[in-house]
């Protein structure tokens, strides 16, 4: 038995480690100082695909991302950890996409990939926290979805049994293939890079990277294991009007860096006397006790 899987992944700025210089004076984000990382829950998603491939070694994993040319780094990371094939969806026309325009572009790329049994993605990306792209892609492909997946319990050629998080508990569901699954951060963490795969794929490149690195050599053939596919709107037959900014129903009216108006506050050093007088004050005005 074998399964064809597509893992959706996103390269994101590491918003968890934002320093004081992360914001420009005008309130916009200084992306240059933020390291670009593999979105954490997308790594959990990749691991779910790898676990299925462990059980059914003839299965294939295609890792798909939409982003600027540098997102090829994320795809190599996926290959180092066990993905078989990588696709970069990149085009200026995709810029400024909200979740709906993103899901349109991804669904077109998935149609271009062709047959699949499972699409697996992280529940949400840490730069937006919306959790919208997975379900929106599933709707565009007219397939069912299971979000908030914690563990794939079983898979057969017909269906998948999944334990998922729900508010205040857990639920076990059985859903037919083909299926979209989104995975939470509480699922099994992703295995590390495999040394052999790092050796094998460290020179894997997109055509753009190849041209920059070897301007005088012929392009890698598409069949080469070192070829990272790079698709534009045209390649995936995408309607430009539904991509990027023009395909996004939501518009950003304004963005602001909040500066809190400082309250008048009392400063304490943490000495015994000061802590005791604070506690007495709180007891007296019935805040505590």
């Amino acid at each position, binding site marked *: 038995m074998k399964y064809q899987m597509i893992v959706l992944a996103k390269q994101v700025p590491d918003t968890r480690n934002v320093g004081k210089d992360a914001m420009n004076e005008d309130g916009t984000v200084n992306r240059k100082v933020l390291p670009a990382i593999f979105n954490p829950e997308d790594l959990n998603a990749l691991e779910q695909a790898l676990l299925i491939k462990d059980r059914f070694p003839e299965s294939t994993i295609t890792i798909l991302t939409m982003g600027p040319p540098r997102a090829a780094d994320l795809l190599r990371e996926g290959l180092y950890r066990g993905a078989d094939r990588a696709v970069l969806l990149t085009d200026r026309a995709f810029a400024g996409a909200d979740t*709906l325009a993103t899901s349109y572009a991804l669904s077109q790329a998935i149609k271009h990939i062709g047959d699949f049994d499972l699409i697996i993605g992280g529940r949400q990306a840490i730069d937006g926290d919306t959790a919208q792209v997975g379900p929106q892609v599933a709707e565009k492909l007219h397939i069912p979805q299971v*979000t908030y997946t914690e563990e794939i319990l079983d898979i057969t050629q017909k269906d998948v049994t999944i334990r998922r998080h729900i508010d205040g508990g857990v639920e076990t569901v059985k859903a037919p293939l083909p299926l979209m699954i989104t995975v939470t951060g509480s699922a099994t963490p992703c295995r590390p890079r495999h040394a052999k795969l790092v050796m094998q794929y460290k020179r894997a490149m997109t055509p753009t990277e190849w041209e920059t690195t070897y301007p005088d050599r012929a392009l890698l053939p598409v069949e080469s294991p070192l070829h990272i596919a790079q698709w534009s709107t045209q390649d995936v037959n995408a309607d430009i009007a539904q991509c990027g900014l023009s395909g996004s129903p939501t518009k950003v009216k304004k963005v602001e860096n909040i500066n809190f108006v400082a*309250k008048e506050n009392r400063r304490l050093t943490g000495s015994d006397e000061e802590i*005791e007088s604070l506690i007495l004050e709180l007891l007296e005005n019935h805040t505590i006790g």
Partner: protein
Amino acid sequence: MKNLFVYLEIEGDVVADVSLELLTKGRSLATELGVELEAIAIGYELETIAEQVIPYGVDILHLFDDKRLAPYTTLPTTSILVNLFKKEQPQICLMGATVIGRDLGPRVSSALISGLTADCTSLVIGDYEDKKMQKQYDNLLYQIRPAFGGNIVATIVNPENRPQMATVREGVMKRQILDPEYKAKSVIRHDVNEFVSTEDFVVEVINRHIEKAAHNLKGSPIVVCGGYGVGSKENFNLLFDLAKCLSGEVGASRAAVDAGFADHDRQIGQTGVTVRPKLYIACGISGQIQHIAGMQESAMIISINNDPDAPINNIADYVITGDIEEVLPKMIHFYKSNSK
């Protein structure tokens, strides 16, 4: 036409708090826009829903009552909303930013090609000018949310596409009955089969287990909350000690939860729980906007931090500059020695 719709989340036969909060907000927005408030209940045995929600000012209640519709599954619920919205053309649709709302909302927005904004912390009606297209829009829904890991606050609008969809976390909006005697214009029992197809029922819920929350963070009058600065899971025990002695609850910032210091269900902030306690003690919390969004309405805030310039200090009533390992045991000690 052009009314404001709220999707009601129902567990057992009880409407979720978040839905009642959205009805409260929805009622005031609908009144401001001069439209009606409509609510949608999808589930099984919905006899008591009307009495639960109409006092919040619901004008029209849509009931979809069918054994197959409980517990919630994605596809039939999506079909019902999509087909209902195609007919009713709402201008706004609000849902809870719960697991269900975040499963359902994007699916519906994708089918209807409408804009959806997740985890809004504020909803306001206002105008919008598209300078490039030289078009003016009146009375749009401003969907305001922290973004980018909580480092900025963005105001999002959906100028062209309808409905304008937004999800909001539980506890963010206040919940208030409009009038216990409020009279709805109509309660409509729909024929479910006109909205769903048999293929919508391909996902089967095998079992479902819901536990009562292990703590009452949302309703606790005293919250002791720890951030990344607490340093370790062991140090969090100090927070539990203080909370226990003050009869409060322990919360955590997202950074502390991500670092594994505290459980996910204790997270306070935009993507966690919103709290409004009498006393909020912030321990080793720097104060990202996304955290502030979940606690800024606390009546009194004490910040304990060894960084005297931590942003959270700006909204604190008391700032204690020091290490939590020293300050918390002192607080416990002086509380015990001074309280009866």
